[in-house]
């Protein structure tokens, strides 16, 4: 597919030098602790995440913590926030504790940019996860691509419509998350992709608040208002559970299919069992991103490298693939013990 080129981008800039230079600057206390810690090989990593207000984020928090626990030489400090200001405060506290590295999933890109600058100022390597920042002043970015998710969902939607109706045309329903940047980016990616297909009409776009219950109610009502629906774009797998239930209740399973996002176990299960309505794709958006961030942080602190990047340092930019999981490849990804 055409997003293969943006799947795993690497940017091996010389950021490491920057960090080291700053380390030798006036930054005193944090610096000293870092040195003393690194000498005996144990590090403290600060982890700042949004509060677990829906399933994906819950899994994110848990995976990240589990990863940190796995490393014997790592102590960690995990904080979660409801809003950007609190997250910024949390990070103040982490800097105060003198952590050696920070893994952060910013609630808002713009809002946490000054905070990132401050982390850099304190000479602490920042591993930024999922949402981008408006600065390059961080050690590594592991990207989840929200716009890409919408975009890939758009692709599968068009494919599905062609398969069912013979042409890229049909009536589409969008169930969106809690109004936020994430929601907005996914909508935007989706809309931008289908913009080339004028016969695809979005007949309803309603909030499902990232919960199954709200999506269930919204979808029930939309099903009533629209006698003809060809497909549903669900911005989140948690919500898809509710959407599927609503379609089943209305006994319109045959009529429409769902393109979804998230990579949640329950949705994989549906694909494996082939239940109706059909979920043709769940674009993974792995809640393991935070865990990957922690893992990379340990490597950065220990001065290790990645396999395949022989002799090189950890890249500055890593964008994870927005992998489409479909009934065809789902078996490869399904893990019955996963928490999401």
């Amino acid at each position: 597919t055409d997003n293969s080129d943006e799947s795993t981008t690497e940017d091996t800039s010389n950021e490491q030098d920057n960090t080291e230079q700053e380390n030798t600057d006036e930054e005193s206390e944090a610096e000293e602790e870092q040195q003393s810690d690194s000498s005996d090989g144990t590090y403290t990593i600060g982890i700042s995440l949004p509060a677990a207000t829906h399933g994906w984020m819950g899994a994110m928090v848990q995976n990240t913590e589990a990863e940190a626990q796995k490393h014997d030489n790592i102590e960690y400090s995990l904080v979660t926030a409801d809003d950007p200001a609190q997250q910024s405060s949390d990070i103040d506290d982490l800097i105060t504790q003198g952590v050696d590295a920070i893994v952060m999933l910013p609630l808002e890109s713009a809002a946490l940019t000054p905070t990132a600058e401050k982390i850099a100022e304190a000479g602490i390597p920042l591993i930024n996860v999922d949402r981008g920042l408006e600065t390059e002043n961080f050690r590594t970015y592991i990207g989840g691509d929200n716009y890409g998710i919408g975009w890939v969902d758009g692709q599968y939607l068009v494919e599905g419509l062609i398969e069912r109706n013979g042409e890229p045309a049909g009536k589409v329903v969008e169930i969106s998350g809690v109004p936020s940047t994430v929601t907005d980016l996914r909508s935007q990616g989706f809309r931008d992709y289908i913009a080339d297909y004028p016969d695809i009409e979005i007949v309803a776009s309603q909030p499902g608040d990232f919960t199954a219950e709200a999506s269930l109610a919204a979808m029930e009502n939309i099903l009533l208002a629209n006698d003809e629906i060809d497909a549903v774009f669900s911005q989140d797998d948690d919500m898809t559970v509710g959407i599927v239930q609503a379609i089943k209740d209305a006994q319109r399973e045959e009529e429409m299919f769902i393109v979804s996002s998230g990579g949640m176990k329950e949705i994989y299960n549906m694909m494996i069992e082939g239940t109706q309505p059909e979920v043709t794709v769940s674009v993974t958006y792995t809640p393991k991103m935070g865990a990957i961030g922690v893992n990379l942080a340990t490597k950065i602190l220990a001065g290790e490298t990645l396999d395949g990047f022989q002799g090189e340092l950890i890249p500055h930019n890593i964008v994870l693939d927005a992998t489409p999981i479909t009934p065809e490849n789902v078996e490869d990804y399904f893990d019955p013990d996963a928490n999401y």
Partner: protein
Amino acid sequence: MSNMQTSPEAKVEERSSSNNKFFIWLQYFWANYSVIFAFIILFILASIASEHFLTPLNLTNMLRQISVIGILAIGMTFVILIGGIDLSVGSVLALTGTVVMASQVDFGASIFTAILFGLFAGLLVGLVNGLVITYGKIAAFITTLAMMTIARSAALYYADAGAISGLNSDYTIIGNEYLFGLPIPVYVFIIVVVISFILLEKTAFGRHIYAVGGNSRAAHLSAVPITRVTIAAYMICGLTAAIGAVIETSRLNSVSTSSSGSMYELDAIAAVIIGGTRLTGGQGKIIGTVFGILILAILSNIMNLMNISPYIQGAVKGAIILVAVLLQKRS
């Protein structure tokens, strides 16, 4: 009326022209049930706004959608009638839902036992709220705010902020099946309403609820067991949260410890107040709450049907709630 001291009614009749008993009745009715008029107006507007609104399927769907918050709002009515408030119901729903699902999934309890555990957990949380408020003498607002974070925390901690999905599909019957054309949750809601109505209107306990809310000192001096009445009100509220949890978890056969029930408390309180119950206690009716919840239901239903932008749904809902309450006040 032969007596010299004229009673208030006598006075009215004397002064107003003639056979306006109907007018007096209307006034009484309006004072107590004006929310019904607000409901009717909204209902008519909704019917005009969307052709889909008046379809039987939509109406039954709507009823099912409100049943959970409706049940919570009924419990909340008791608490607000005694002059209290319970901000914890949403979190308690998540916690009791977790108890119900975990009992089935992690401890292999039967559906029946799991539900009993859930209801018991709800009663227990209510008991704790009530004890802290009465014996600890801490404001209900702050007690239940603390309980809101505590109950949510407990659920998150147990399930690592994840969801618990049920294995037994029999459990989904409660939330999904129909009986004589109406969804089962609607029956549960109706049963809760009827029992609450009887409790409030026909029993001494109901009188005591109004007495504690109307003037707790006076109630105390009249030997009303205000502590027990207060605790009972919070326990009822906890119980309704648990009943709501059973319906909600049964509907999707899962509970999400992070998002289930979040912000439900605000909708429940809004329904009670729209229904005409006074926030300071002592005045209000179950029927009012029922119509309050119906107003909220129509609102979100019609906004979905008309595909109103999610960004402005909040504004529309807020504005219409204000108008509904304003309409009522013209008495």
